[in-house]
């Protein structure tokens, strides 16, 4: 699997490309205060709930797995990642995966 062996050579050669890692935020700064909403409902909009169950259903049906789903979110352009709400990211990832697998568009 090239992804596993190739990186060791790249590391030794010093040729690792810049990794998209907008999601990898442990220890990063600049995100401001932690905003909390008292009495927050499970979903703020019905569409969020539908995205939640749609995602679960599509994984149950085997269209993609959880790691593919996470990776699809991670592959979003940084600006889109930061600008999208949580479930909007989910929706964009689902669309992307279904498109890549030829299910839609």
């Amino acid at each position: 699997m090239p992804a596993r062996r190739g990186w060791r050579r790249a590391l030794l050669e010093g040729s690792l490309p810049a990794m998209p890692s907008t999601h990898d935020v442990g220890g990063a700064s600049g995100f401001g205060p932690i905003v909390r909403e008292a009495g927050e409902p499970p979903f703020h909009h019905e569409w969020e709930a539908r995205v939640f169950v749609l995602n679960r259903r599509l994984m149950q049906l085997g269209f993609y797995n959880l790691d593919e789903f996470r990776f699809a979110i991670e592959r979003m352009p940084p600006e889109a990642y930061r600008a999208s709400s949580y479930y909007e990211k989910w929706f964009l990832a689902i669309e992307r995966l279904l498109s890549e697998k030829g299910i839609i568009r």
Partner: protein
Amino acid sequence: MKGEQGHDHDHHDHEAHAESASMASRVGALIANLESKGIVSGAELDAAVEAFLVGTQRAGGPALVARAWVDPAFRGRLLADANGALAELGIDMTHWAHVKVRAVENTDRVHNVIVCTLCSCYPVALLGPSPTWYKSLAYRSRVVREPRAVLAEFGLALDPNIEVRVWDSTAELRYVVLPRRPDGTEALGEAELALLVTRDALIGTAVCRAETGPLREAVR
């Protein structure tokens, strides 16, 4: 929040509403598309939403903690094998049957707090849906870096001698904090004790208190 000027506030609300309507439309279109291909059924999805919301009302975290507080042997089993303990209590983990749960215990020397810095993994089966703050870039980035400051923002001041242990959920293990039983609860039964266990205490951003107060965020 631009609250000072009426029209800015209205504009913000209007924008948010338009965004939401736009998303609702896009989601509806995708579901319709998939339905036309026989992949999903809109009705099934709606039923799944209902079932999920009902299920969250029975999230088992508080029951787990209350039993551990009253039954030391159960507490030992919970800490050694949380999945077994969940099964003992008949807590439904159907959708998360493959998930390994681990309970981590707060003591007078250790305080635990949970995060997923990479995305926002969370024990939904035990706690219900995660709060937005848990999923925020601010929480994910800061709690590993400055946990005490974050806990202080949540109103929790820890003794400097207590070790803070942050658990970054990077794999399919899901963590739940076993908070300390509050003083003055000796007379309470299991059901009453469960009412003292808040979602934030199970994440580690709060401790349990003997009395419920107006700011307590119940697990619902």
